[in-house]
């Protein structure tokens, strides 16, 4: 098992369906609980030229993510396993081998800040 997987598993219970909110649009799509990493409800993601700003009203927090971090956050839609996220990320940014430590570190932050729940 990859380090990213080990670090992220078992921290949170499965999450309910997500209504993903972005800066300009609200998706009405629902995703089923799959056991995959999933953004928590109620995040407002505002796109920036160099990443994004995420408002988390429930915790009165704001997060600034660079472009690779927001890419990973966006993959947390409940439809990708950690392994898939790792593979997509590595292939997209042409990283070989996959930067597991970097991925693990940012997912630890996601989990610690309760942006993503990883069953």
């Amino acid at each position, binding site marked *: 098992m990859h380090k990213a997987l080990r670090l992220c598993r078992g921290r949170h219970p499965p999450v309910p369906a997500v209504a993903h909110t972005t800066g300009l649009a609200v998706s009405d799509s629902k995703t089923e609980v799959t056991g995959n990493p999933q953004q928590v409800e109620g995040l407002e993601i505002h796109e920036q030229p160099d990443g994004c700003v995420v408002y988390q009203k429930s915790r009165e927090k704001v997060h*600034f993510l660079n472009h690779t971090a927001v*890419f990973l956050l966006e993959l947390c839609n409940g439809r990708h396993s950690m392994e898939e996220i790792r593979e997509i990320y590595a292939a997209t940014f042409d990283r070989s081998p996959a930067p597991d430590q970097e991925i693990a570190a940012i997912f630890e932050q996601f989990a610690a800040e309760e942006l993503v729940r990883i069953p």
Partner: protein
Amino acid sequence: MEEKLDTRLEKVEPNRRDFMKKVAIGAAYAVPVMASFSLDSVRNKAFAQASYGPTPPRVARLNVVDGSPDNFVVRITFDQAMDTSIAPNNGADSRIAKPAIECYDREWCYAFDNDPSHDTCESTDFRFALPPYTWRWDSNRVHILTISGLFSSGSTDNGSGPGIRIKYGKKPKEEGCIDFKGANGLNLVPFEGRVNLPLE
């Protein structure tokens, strides 16, 4: 490249896919990083580090478009263009979903004379039910914000100094604000202005 990305991102919502493609293609690789702050600290910090330029935005003019208490409309003109991309262009009162005027604060004062220190003021701040209001920007990056709302007319105690004083913005050491986002992130731009509404 794009075709491969499309395949990789097939399980991503279509409305997010374009953004992710832009992210993937548009910038050199960097280690993923995230910086987190409490909203309060950002507000305070952002004001100190205003990204609008050497001086933070100020209200250049505050004027009443319609002064009737049941259809109050005020126009706020800033001295520089505001990035309103956090704030929807149009919106209705909601402290939860509408960050543009999350901290929007109104206060009306019963004015006895022309000396503000003699005023008796009541605030709409959380202690009272807020009258509904809406706001509108003229475009996405604008100088002018128009706020419309319903206000109680109130009355003056002695009848000699008619006026409802509406106060916007940050009072000393208190919250009361409109949020705007600058190029470097979130900026809180407190401002203060007063308009006097004639009472009928």
